[in-house]
């Protein structure tokens, strides 16, 4: 059975014995000696080619006192511009919003018609996103946020 989890002092493959952290390898790979690409958790060595973080989408809350436990949606009329406000994300580098919408179809075969949403994200802060619904109908958009990893253009 392969060593899967390494917590504490690193190995030469993990950046050296002067490095401390937590690493988890893919099933069947030895966490002590496998390549960086064979890790599924990596607390990295701080090098330019190491990972910068984990992609963990955060559910957001728009109501004071309500925990960020569920996905959040907002309805916007056709052609309208609105700011969707949310709470609890005062991260130093800010947030990046991820929006999604549904599509509906009607008819069959060559007569199938697709109706979907289109929208622009005009601006965003740690407490709100300003969006415009460019669809021909009102839309309910779902969104979550991801923390920015740094204050530079590329990381």
């Amino acid at each position, binding site marked *: *059975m392969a060593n*899967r*989890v390494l917590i504490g002092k690193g190995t030469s493959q993990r950046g050296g014995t002067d490095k401390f952290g937590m690493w*988890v390898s*893919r*099933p*069947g790979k030895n966490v002590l000696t496998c390549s960086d*690409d064979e*890790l*599924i*958790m*990596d607390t990295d060595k701080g090098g*330019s*080619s190491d*990972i*910068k*973080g*984990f*992609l*963990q989408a955060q559910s957001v809350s728009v109501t004071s006192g309500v*925990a960020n*436990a569920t996905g959040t949606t907002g309805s916007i009329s056709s052609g309208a511009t609105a700011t969707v406000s949310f709470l609890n994300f005062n991260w130093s580098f800010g947030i*990046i*919003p*991820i*929006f999604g*919408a549904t*599509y509906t179809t009607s008819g069959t*075969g*060559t007569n199938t018609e*697709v109706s*979907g*949403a*289109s*929208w*622009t*994200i*005009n601006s965003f802060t740690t407490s709100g996103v300003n969006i415009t619904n*460019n*669809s021909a109908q009102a839309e309910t958009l779902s969104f979550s946020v*991801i923390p*920015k*990893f*740094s204050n*530079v*253009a*590329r*990381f």
Partner: protein
Amino acid sequence: MANRVLLGQLASGVHGLKVSKPGINALTAATKDLLFDSTSVRTGMVYAGGQDLTLNDAADNYLTTGSKASLGYIPLVIFSEKNNGQIEVDDIDTSLYGSEISSWKTTTSTVTPVTCQTGGVVSGNQLEGGLPTNGRGYDGISSANENAINVNYFVLRIPCAFGYMNNTYFG
């Protein structure tokens, strides 16, 4: 309070680490309720990315021209930008439809906004259309409404292309 972290024996002969969502017991949690699961073969580790970029029609090198090593495969990239959603294009007497204007081409070093070639339905009810082209250039759509503006993206250590979805990268 729920048990949140399980480290060690997960099942008979299986060792690893599981971390559950708040309020979920890590000992019994379904996979969908785990924040981390060492039985997975890939996780969303962010290798590179760009923030607040106005690329318009241009490609962007996420290896930042040599300062970061190539992953050796075409990775999964998550995008957020100004223009999103469906696009309808009127081409003389035909109305064409694209499901997503925020479409991108990804290579082992770059991401490029693309124009999807909307097609029609041919015999057998099959869709046909050309390959996407670099840059955004839909007829009748202004640059402000189609270009890659205010782009944020995350390059994940997850292969996502034909030829890389195999045991070499997922085994």
